[in-house]
């Protein structure tokens, strides 16, 4: 469902992503693992059409992002970590509705989806309150609902649990697993092998913009005789450092 083909991004002298290729199938969670500055965010920004690749491309549901960026965007939902970007002066419902409208949904469709999401994420109580005073966990749910209100086939998560406490992280992780159940293709970036281990079917490790490993988590474990995967990650990355 997602096919990344020789994706490369150069910022002036820095090559942030260097000829990276991998695939993600429907119903599959792929972990995009790398240290700070490895190029995870840049990769996801290119797949979501926010950045133009220097070379290479990616296909989302068979649509080439260079040729049909609008159609690609319709298929994609993003949840990027760090500060959850919401409009504080709008209610939760208005926040979600805005993105539903901009996603090209009809009003009925949008309202139906919002009701379903409010149910699913247990937000009914506060959906008509302004988000400015929400707790981090409540905001996270609104951001999740916003990301998925247009029913995308593909979800891109960029370190979505960064800065979240255990219960908020759990909300996000449950949501990711739920996406998998619904047959979505998911890329999940992280710099923690632990989290990747817990959620992902496959792992793509990048280091300094280059792909260093692409394979099933189990295979990785088998290959290294059940060694602690965090150490395996460091070794894979460390090898390249020399």
């Amino acid at each position, binding site marked *: 469902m997602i096919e990344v083909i020789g994706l490369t991004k150069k910022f002036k002298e820095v090559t942030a992503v260097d000829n990276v290729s991998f695939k993600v199938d429907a119903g599959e969670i792929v972990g995009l693992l790398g240290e700070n500055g490895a190029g995870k965010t840049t990769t996801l920004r290119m797949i*979501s*059409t926010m950045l133009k690749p220097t070379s290479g491309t990616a296909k989302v549901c068979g649509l080439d992002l260079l040729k049909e960026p609008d159609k690609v965007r319709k298929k994609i939902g993003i949840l990027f970590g760090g500060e959850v970007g919401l409009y504080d002066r709008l209610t939760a419902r208005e926040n979600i509705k805005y993105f539903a409208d901009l996603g*090209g949904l009809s009003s009925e469709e949008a309202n139906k989806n919002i009701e379903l999401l409010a149910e699913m994420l247990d937000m009914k109580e506060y959906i008509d309150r302004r988000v400015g005073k929400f707790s981090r966990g409540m905001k996270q749910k609104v951001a999740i609902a916003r990301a998925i209100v247009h029913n995308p086939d593909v979800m891109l998560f960029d370190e979505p649990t960064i800065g979240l406490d255990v219960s908020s992280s759990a909300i996000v992780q449950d949501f990711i697993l739920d996406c998998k159940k619904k047959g979505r293709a998911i890329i999940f970036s992280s710099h923690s092998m632990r989290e990747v281990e817990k959620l992902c079917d496959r792992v793509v490790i990048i280091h300094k913009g280059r792909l260093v490993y692409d394979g099933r988590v189990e295979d990785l474990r088998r290959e290294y005789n059940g060694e602690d995967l965090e150490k395996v990650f460091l070794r894979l990355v460390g090898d390249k450092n020399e």
Partner: protein
Amino acid sequence: MSNLWGIVFKKELKDLFRDRKTVIMSVVLPLVLFPLLFGLIGKGVKSTTEKVTKEVKIAYVGGESSFKKFLSNVPNIKLIETKDYQEEVRKGSVYLAVVVEEDFDKKLAQDKMSDIKIIYDSESTNSQTALDVVEDIINKYKDEIVKRRLEARGIDVSILNPIDIKNEPIDKEKANQGALILTMLLPLYLIIYAITGPMAAAVDLGAGEKERGTLEPLLTTQASRMQLLFGKLLAISVMGIIGTTSSLTGLYIAFKYSMDFMGDVGLNISIGSLILIGITAIILNMIFAAVELAISIYARSFKEAQTYLSPVTIIGMIVAYGTYMMDVKSASTIMFNIPLANVSLIIKEFIIGIYNPVHIAITFAWALVYIIAAILFARYMFSKEEVVFRT
């Protein structure tokens, strides 16, 4: 799909109107600022002036004289006898001291010049006000003496006033002093309001979007950057126009009720002129809305946007003040090609009822060029990866 900018526009307006800070800064403050300011200053000036002129306390220094008699016959003057008049003036217990020389009357009788010295406090407004009052009285007294002296010689007083000036406006119908004041002030205000009105909104919708982290999800929606830009631009322009409207309303109220100088000056502007001025104000707001949005998109944060925008304000104000004294009647057509100056001049023309199609065409054509250039600039900013993802 094509009306996605409409969705953006509606959302942004709703968002802006819920921001108490923006509403206060661009709607409420302009509306009440001038009436309050004018009201307070007017009242303050009036009450202190009243207090002083009701009972002008002055120290009289010197012997008995005809002037002392004259002075004590003025109803609101209170003469106070004191030794240490300098100290009293300094303390403010008398507003000023009048020092009359010893042989004042004798000199006058001999048709010589006599001295009156007034000791006042240049740092005290009360003393200044009293000075005006006392000088008036002395002048009156002087006139009386002159008249007496001339009469004693059998000469008519009018010999001192050989020329009597009478001003008569060329077109009595249009004797329109209000319009003259307006041609100076209105362009200035309209330009300044067009700069300041959209600013808070521009900062919020450009840099604010980045700082909140809402820009990334926004860019992955179906809305194109041009649609986002257009919706935002329209919302910012609307805020600017509301700002201009409430500023002018505030100004009008201030003039009307707090001061009297608008009352008796004739002012007649046709409806046509008002509409044209309104259109010009809208165009001005759109120009600055686009420029400010572009700069705001370039900025990384609210703070940075505010920093970048202050020079725009200053440059705009300098140009606006530059056109303040410009006279429309002598403006050549070439001047209608100078940015901002042309807008200022065309407003002046509208006020006094000149509708020169060439001037209007040139000015509005340029305005269109500025707006398009500013939008393209904003779009360029919005499409540059280095700008959108500056960290």
